């Protein structure tokens, strides 16, 4: 690009990149290296860290609480990802139709997205309350006796999944909407002339054309799921009896409540390992189903 003077160019690179680069090194690269080292020690924040090799990593998979948290995180993913994917895609297809009040609908579905998890969790704890909650009242109106959702060992995780889908569906719908709007109108016109029904148009044109968006949403939804934390801490604090404890919830409690920094660091690297492997796998698999020709 332009700028004849080499000195000026390098000065500009230096000045413009300095703050970002400093942030990268101080708040990302350096802590990453420290964390890798800490995960090999038994540091408790008070005494000097001892090097103990990979013992923490073995414990991550052996200790019961930690194993339960890993299992719960995967349960969450299995429930949450397909649900949020299907519902946001359906919502986006409807939001993309040229109808009245479109702007209103688009704004309304985004309301849960902009709210903090803490506030959302509080509202839903109230709605899911066993005795005086709105949901059980509505269920009782159609003759169903609702469970005590968040305090029930079986229903606690499905409740967290349900609320998470509710909060995120608008965000992913907007991403799908952006993808749908990229599709040229001619495709639909041509299909219409050939006599394709609206359903056929969605299945044969929209769906294959937005596979890149679907891929993006699946990757992001998975990465976010692995980091399940806020809603768990505020809604159930990991209970009842560990039914909703998650990997990050355990990292937080080990590092800042029990002073097991080394162990928490190992847990966080295992978490990263999961995210890395799953994301890599998705990138490998995408060649089979994601279609980038437009």
């Amino acid at each position, binding site marked *: 690009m332009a700028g004849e003077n080499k000195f000026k160019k390098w000065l500009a690179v230096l000045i413009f990149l300095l703050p970002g680069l400093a942030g990268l090194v101080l708040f*990302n690269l350096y802590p990453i290296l420290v964390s890798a080292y800490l995960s090999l020690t038994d540091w408790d924040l008070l005494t000097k860290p001892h090097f103990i090799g990979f013992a923490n990593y073995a414990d991550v998979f052996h200790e019961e609480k930690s194993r339960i948290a890993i299992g719960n995180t995967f349960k969450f993913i299995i429930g949450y990802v397909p649900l949020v994917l299907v519902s946001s895609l359906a919502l986006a297809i409807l939001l993309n139709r040229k*109808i009245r009040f479109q702007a209103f609908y688009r704004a*309304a579905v985004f309301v849960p997205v902009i709210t*903090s998890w803490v506030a959302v969790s509080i509202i839903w704890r109230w709605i899911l309350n066993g005795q005086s909650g709105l949901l059980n009242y509505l269920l009782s109106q159609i003759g169903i006796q609702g469970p005590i959702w968040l305090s029930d060992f079986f229903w606690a995780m499905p409740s967290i999944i349900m609320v998470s889908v509710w909060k995120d569906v608008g965000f992913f719908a907007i991403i799908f909407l*952006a993808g749908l709007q990229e599709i040229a109108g001619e495709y639909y016109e041509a299909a219409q002339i050939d006599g394709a029904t609206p359903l056929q148009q969605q299945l044969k044109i929209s769906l294959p054309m937005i596979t890149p*968006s679907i891929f993006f949403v699946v990757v992001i939804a998975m990465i976010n799921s692995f980091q399940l*934390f806020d809603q768990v801490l505020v809604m159930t604090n990991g209970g009842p009896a560990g039914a909703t404890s998650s990997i990050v919830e355990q990292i*937080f409690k080990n590092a800042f409540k029990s002073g097991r920094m080394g162990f928490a660091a190992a847990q966080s690297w295992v978490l990263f390992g999961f995210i890395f492997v799953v994301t890599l796998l998705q990138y490998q698999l995408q060649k089979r189903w994601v279609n980038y020709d437009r």
Partner: protein
Amino acid sequence: MIDKNALLRDMITHLILLVAVVILTVPFIWMLSGAFKDTLEVVKLPPRFLPSKYNFDNFKEIGKYFPMGRFLLNSIFVSVVTSFLQVLICAMSAFVFAKIRFRGSGFLFMLFMITMMIPFQVTMTPLYVLFQKFNLIDTYLGLILPGIFSAYGTFLLRQHMLTIPNVLLEAAFIDGASYIRVFAKLILPLSKPALATLVIFAFMGCWNNFLWPLIIINSNELMTLPLGLSMLTGRWATVWNVLMAGNVISFIPIFVVYLFAQKYFIRGITMSGVKG
């Protein structure tokens, strides 16, 4: 015939969307009405959607549990400063990566991208230790610093700046403009939609951030709204009406920001290339 079908389809679309909107917004409307109810009415079944009497005491009542005004100001201050600095720093880095060719550019950009994959949980413990060394625990600076750097924001803005034609910049350089001038007078104004998108993302992320403030803040004077609200649920779980009043207060500022920046949103997401 075709028109009739189209009308029917529109009606079905409206119907489904209305149901979706009800499911997605009723909890908020209930929260809003709950904020004005008294202690008994808020848990009364069958629920009334409108309070029988509008009661503003709940908003004052919060003061008994935590200093709402203080927490609100903290949240506003931290979110405004963080998102301003984040957008500025990201724009500066993005400008370099999008518009200046130099040796090592590819490598540095890759480093930025790699940090996007590392979850915050990995860096959070060492960051806490680092901040402890620099006496940043329980300070505004400690709250703000980790949020001002965003690899994602750099990526988003760079994607947009790549679409700005190079001839524009060349013309400016020939006229003798400096890099700083080109950045301030050309790049920034032309990147408005992308900047607006990042502003919302940054503000939202900071306003709603829970984990980092939870770790780094101990004293009441520095706490942000999510911390205050979570304190309420721990100890005062039954005071639903007061809780909902607090929720309403925490929701309004973020909603206002969203309304202002909304029109850029879908465009911004499209441009950032997230759709593939």
